[in-house]
């Protein structure tokens, strides 16, 4: 099928107006030896046949009844209103709102998104979005080197391994030095040459840092050094102290938890917020409120565009153009649908259910919770036999927790367990049974 509306008669009419005889003449400027006959692909399919094809392909994926896997992407309840709003055709088939007067709907929505992120994080200003948490962190790092005019970064251990890799790639591109260090080495490594310290909290292993203390330590030793926090599941902000109250300079997060399906890892949402004094160095689109030139009504438009690539070109600090607008709309609707009550309640359930699982696991000999600090909805557990646990989970149709050896080959037999409000009591009991069975089967040499 195709979506071309013309019939042959219409095409002939149009060719006549142009003054040519056939469609081939349209391509007269292309050297003849570059014109191909046809693509070596199957012919097109109609809707029912396409759907059948895709459904068959999708059946090769397995949807588990419940999940204990997090590690950067999370299963949370997505309110019905999210899909309802982002399916409004005037939103999802529109383009970047350059003509403000015909795009007030979306511009106001983005302004509201910037506002809820500011309110939730207590950071002074948030942009309209970056691609995802990992690239937002990389761009925050580059922004810090531009602001401070320094070329080195410190990354604290505990940042999601894939995020660190992305930061490394971006830094290599611009010749920025970086080192990954343990937190207790911070005092030794921190000096006046460091542009920023990057850390994650809650971190990859689940630990919640005392960010105020960390900020104090950093700023006392190196007052001009920026502190950049990243977060992979910002639903914790329903309960945790927000970065704006802890002297963090730039805050980035993966916003997938705010109303976006996992969808095999994308599209996600890069949340990006910073202190007011860094506003003019922020990458990404910004929507501002203003008045009519010849009137009194207030409206919204894209502002501070002189920061961006279409004006600055090679002098731009970031090349970002298309971002994740529709995903930021999802996040806005999620946050508003839940409201303060819902956000608090969801975050509490995540804490409490994860805590419950921790207690239950500790009751099984051979399982040991390794976190020394408080945790949100993820924690790491030493297991007698990680493969057995994984197997038992799958038997009970549970998506097993992440084996840390995926990212840290020397950390065998440790898993990263994630528990959210979506884990019912039954699923938790099943998980505990799986953990017990893994022990039992290991003892008997079974797999």
């Amino acid at each position: 099928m195709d979506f071309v509306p013309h019939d042959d008669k219409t095409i002939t009419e149009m060719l006549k107006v142009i003054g040519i005889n056939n469609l081939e003449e349209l391509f007269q400027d292309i050297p003849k030896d570059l014109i191909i006959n046809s693509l070596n692909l199957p012919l097109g399919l109609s809707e029912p046949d396409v759907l059948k094809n895709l459904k068959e392909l999708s059946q090769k994926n397995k949807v588990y009844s419940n999940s204990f896997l997090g590690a950067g992407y999370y299963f949370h309840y997505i309110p019905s209103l999210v899909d309802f709003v982002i399916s409004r055709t005037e939103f999802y088939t529109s383009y970047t709102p350059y003509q403000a007067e015909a795009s007030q709907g979306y511009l106001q929505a983005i302004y509201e998104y910037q506002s809820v992120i500011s309110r939730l994080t207590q950071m002074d200003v948030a942009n309209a979005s970056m691609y995802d948490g990992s690239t937002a962190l990389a761009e925050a790092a580059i922004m810090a080197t531009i602001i401070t005019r320094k070329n080195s970064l410190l990354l604290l251990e505990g940042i999601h391994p894939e995020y660190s890799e992305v930061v490394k790639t971006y830094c290599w591109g611009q010749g920025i030095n970086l080192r990954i260090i343990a937190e207790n080495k911070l005092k030794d490594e921190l000096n006046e040459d460091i542009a920023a310290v990057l850390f994650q909290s809650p971190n990859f292993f689940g630990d919640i840092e005392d960010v105020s203390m960390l900020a104090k330590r950093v700023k006392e030793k190196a007052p001009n050094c920026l502190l950049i926090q990243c977060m992979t599941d910002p639903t914790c902000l329903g309960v945790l102290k927000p970065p704006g109250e802890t002297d963090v300079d730039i805050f980035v997060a993966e916003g997938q938890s705010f109303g976006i399906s996992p969808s095999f890892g994308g599209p996600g949402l890069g949340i990006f917020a910073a202190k007011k004094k860094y506003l003019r160095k922020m990458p990404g689109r910004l929507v501002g409120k203003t008045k009519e030139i010849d009137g009194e009504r207030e409206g919204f438009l894209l502002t501070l565009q002189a920061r961006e690539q279409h004006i600055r070109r090679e002098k731009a600090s970031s090349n970002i153009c298309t971002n994740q607008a529709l995903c930021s709309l999802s996040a806005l609707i999620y946050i508003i649908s839940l409201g303060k009550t819902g956000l608090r309640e969801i975050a509490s359930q995540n804490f409490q259910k994860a805590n419950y699982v921790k207690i239950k696991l500790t009751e099984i000999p051979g399982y040991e919770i390794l976190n020394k600090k408080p945790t949100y909805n993820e924690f790491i557990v030493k297991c007698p036999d990680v493969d057995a646990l994984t197997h038992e989970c799958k038997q009970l149709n549970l998506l097993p927790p992440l084996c840390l050896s995926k990212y840290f080959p020397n950390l065998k037999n440790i898993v990263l367990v994630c528990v959210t409000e979506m884990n019912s009591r039954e699923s938790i009991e099943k998980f505990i049974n799986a953990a017990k069975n893994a022990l039992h089967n290991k003892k008997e040499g079974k797999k």
Partner: protein
Amino acid sequence: MEYEFPDDIKYMKTHEWARIEGDMATIGITDYAQHQLGDIVYVELPEIGRTLEKDSNAGEIESVKAVGEILMPLSGEIAEINAIIIESPESINSSPYGTGWMMKIKVSNSSEINELLSVEDYKKIVEEEKK
């Protein structure tokens, strides 16, 4: 379009001007430059105390639709920044040679003054650009 070209100052081909008074120089952008940029919304200037070489980057000036680099007409130490243009950048549009001055520097190498353009030479450059 008639632009202002005061004759008591020196110019750069990149549209900065410098008014020399003893060992100090006041720096700004020309009337032609502010017109090209349009309504100015923001200016970024170096910190007081910083020393910069002639022709090096001394900040940026932004309008709604464009951004321009400010270059140092002369080498020197930044002595003063005009607070008015930080608060009200529109002063650069309305009075580029008066209240819209940008910074004052302590000139470190007065021989560089001879390399700057006279008002006549600068006028020629503007004529060329307009074509």
